[in-house]
C-alpha cells in the first residue's frame, strides 16, 4: 500500500491501522522483514554452506552415478575410462613418439599416466565449474541454497572420479616396479591440496561462466595450452635444459605442474626429490590457500545475482 493513498483512507474514518502511510522500507523494518534474496554475510554464508553439506555430497554422488547409469557395464566405466585413457597415452607417447627423454622407461610410463590423471582432475573441475551455474539455472531459479554448493559439488564429483582413476594408477605404478611404500602416504596431502586448488578455480570459473557462458567454448583451448606448458608428457627440467633456469622454474611452479610432480614423487621410486623445484610444498600449499580462499570470496560477492543467468 503506497503512501499516496493515505489521505483517502483517513477520510473513510474507519479504524485506521498505525501502519498506514509508512513507506515500504519503514513498514518492513517495523515487522522485521528482510530483503528477499539478499546476500548473507561471509560468516553466515559459510554456515549455510555447512548446513548443506549433505546435499553437496548427495548431489556430487548422484551426478557421478547418473553419468554411467545407461551403460550396460554401468559403474565399471568409472575404472575402465581412465584405464583406456592411460592405454592411449602409453601407445602414442610411450611406443610411437618415445617422448621419454631423460627418463628410463619404467619411470616414464607411470610418470605419464600420473601426469594425465592429475591434470585431468584440474581440467575437468574447471570445465564442470564453468557450467556449474549456467548449466543448472533451472535449479538456481527453483530452490534456495548457497550457490557455492554447485561448483563445490562438481569439484567433489571430480575428486571421486579421480579416486577411481587412482586404482588404475596404483596398478600401473606397481606394474612398472614402484611398489607401495611409506612415500605413498604423501598422496593424501597432495590430493587434499589439489582438491582445494581445484575447488577455488571451479568457484571462479562458475562466476565467470554464469556471466559469460561463451567460456565453455573457450576453456578447452586454454586448458590444452596449460596442459602442454605443465609437462604432462615430458620432464620440464630435461626439456628446457638449454633454456634459462628461471623459465623452467616458472613452468615448474605452476600449480598443476607442482601437484603432478608431488604425486609422481610420492608414487614412483625412480622419481626422486632432485626432480622437484625448490620450496615445492610451500608453493603447493600457497596455491591451494590462495585459490580456495580467493575463489570462495569472489564467488560469494555475486551470490544474489546468479539467478539472473
Amino acid at each position, binding site marked *: *500500500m*503506497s503512501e499516496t493513498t493515505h489521505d483517502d483512507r483517513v477520510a473513510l474514518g*474507519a*479504524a485506521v*491501522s498505525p*501502519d498506514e502511510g509508512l513507506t*515500504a*522500507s519503514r*513498514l*518492513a523494518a517495523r*515487522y*522485521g*522483514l*528482510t*530483503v*528477499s*534474496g*539478499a546476500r548473507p554475510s561471509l560468516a553466515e554464508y559459510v554456515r549455510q554452506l555447512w*548446513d*548443506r553439506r*549433505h*546435499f553437496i555430497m*548427495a*548431489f556430487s554422488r*548422484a*551426478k557421478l*552415478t*547418473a553419468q554411467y*547409469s*545407461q551403460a550396460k557395464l554401468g559403474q565399471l566405466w568409472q575404472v575402465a575410462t581412465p584405464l583406456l585413457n592411460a592405454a592411449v597415452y602409453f601407445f602414442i607417447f610411450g611406443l610411437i613418439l618415445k617422448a621419454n627423454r631423460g627418463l628410463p622407461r619404467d619411470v616414464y610410463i607411470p610418470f605419464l599416466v600420473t601426469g594425465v590423471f592429475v591434470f585431468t582432475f584440474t581440467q575437468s573441475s574447471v570445465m564442470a565449474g564453468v557450467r556449474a551455474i549456467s548449466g*543448472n539455472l*533451472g*535449479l*538456481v*531459479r*527453483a*530452490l*534456495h*541454497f548457497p550457490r557455492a554448493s554447485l561448483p563445490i559439488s562438481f569439484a567433489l564429483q571430480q575428486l571421486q572420479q579421480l579416486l577411481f582413476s587412482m586404482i588404475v594408477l596404483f596398478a600401473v605404478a606397481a606394474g612398472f616396479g614402484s611398489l607401495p611404500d611409506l612415500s605413498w602416504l604423501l598422496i593424501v596431502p597432495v590430493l587434499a591440496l589439489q582438491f582445494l586448488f581445484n575447488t577455488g578455480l571451479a568457484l571462479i570459473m562458475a562466476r565467470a561462466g554464469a556471466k559469460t*557462458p561463451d567460456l565453455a567454448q573457450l576453456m578447452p583451448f586454454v586448458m590444452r595450452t596449460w596442459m602442454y606448458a605443465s609437462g604432462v608428457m615430458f620432464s620440464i627440467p630435461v626439456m628446457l635444459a638449454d633454456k634459462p633456469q628461471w623459465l623452467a622454474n616458472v613452468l615448474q611452479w605452476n600449480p598443476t605442474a607442482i601437484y603432478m610432480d608431488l604425486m609422481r614423487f610420492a608414487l614412483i621410486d625412480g622419481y626422486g626429490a632432485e626432480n622437484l623445484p625448490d620450496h615445492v610444498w610451500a608453493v603447493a600449499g600457497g596455491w591451494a590457500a590462495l585459490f580456495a580462499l580467493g575463489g570462495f570470496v569472489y564467488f560469494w560477492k555475486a551470490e*544474489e*545475482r546468479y*539467478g*539472473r*543467468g
Partner: protein
Amino acid sequence: MAEPSTEQQGERIPTVIADELHIVYRVHGAKTGKGSATAALSRILKRGEERGVRKVHAVKGVSFVAYRGEAVGLIGSNGSGKSTLLRAIAGLLPAESGKVYTNGQPSLLGVNAALMNDLTGERNVILGGLAMGMSREQVRERYQEIVDFSGINEKGDFITLPMRTYSSGMAARLRFSIAAAKDHDVLMIDEALATGDRKFQKRSEERIRELRKKAGTVFLVSHNNNSIRDTCDRVLWLERGELRMDGPTDEVLKEYEKFTGK
C-alpha cells in the same frame, strides 16, 4: 472468505512487501536480425550497449503488501509475469530495481530441477529432500510417508527403478510428493494442483490445503479460476508485467472473466 473488515480486529502482520518491483530478463542470441556467425561478429565489433542481448521487461513496477494468514491468487494470461513475480518474491531472481521484503524464506513448491532421471526414485526422494533444505534425519523420517503418498509402489516395487522408466504421471506424482513433504512459512504454488490421475489430484489438493494451514501466507498461480476461488481470499491480476488489479477474489475474478471474454 476473509473480508478486510473482519480482519481489522486483530493486527494485520505483513509477511511479504513488494516495493516498485521491476524484473528484466536478458536473453542472449535472440537479438532480432541475422543469426549468422558474421552477424554475431559484427555485433561484437560494434560499440554500443550490451551487444547481442535482448531485454525482456517481465515485471514492471509491482507493489503490494501481503499479510499473515492470507491466500493470494495470481492470475493473468500466459506470459504476464506471474511465475517471474513468484520467483522474485522467493529471492531467486534478482530485481532490476525495487525491493521485496519477506518474513523468513519464501519457498516455491517444486523440486523438479533437483531431480535426476537416471537415478532411482529412492535416491531422488533423498536428493530432493536435501535440496529443499531438509536435514538427513528429516528425510529419513519422511521417506516412507513420501513414498506412500506418491503411491508409486502400489503397482509393484517401482521406487527402486530409475525415474526415466516411470510414466509421466508417475514421475509427476513422485515430484509432487517430494515437494509437498516440507512445511513452509511463505508458500508459493505454481500451477501444481493438476498432477496425476483423478485420485491423486484429490489427494494432492488435500495436501495443499494442509500445507496452507501450516504456512503463514500462500501465493497460488493458476489458470483455473475455480481453484483460485476455492483457495484464495485476495487476487492479484497481472497483465503485461503490470499489476492491473488487486482486491477481493470475487471482484477481481469478475473483471478478469469480463476481460478474457468468458
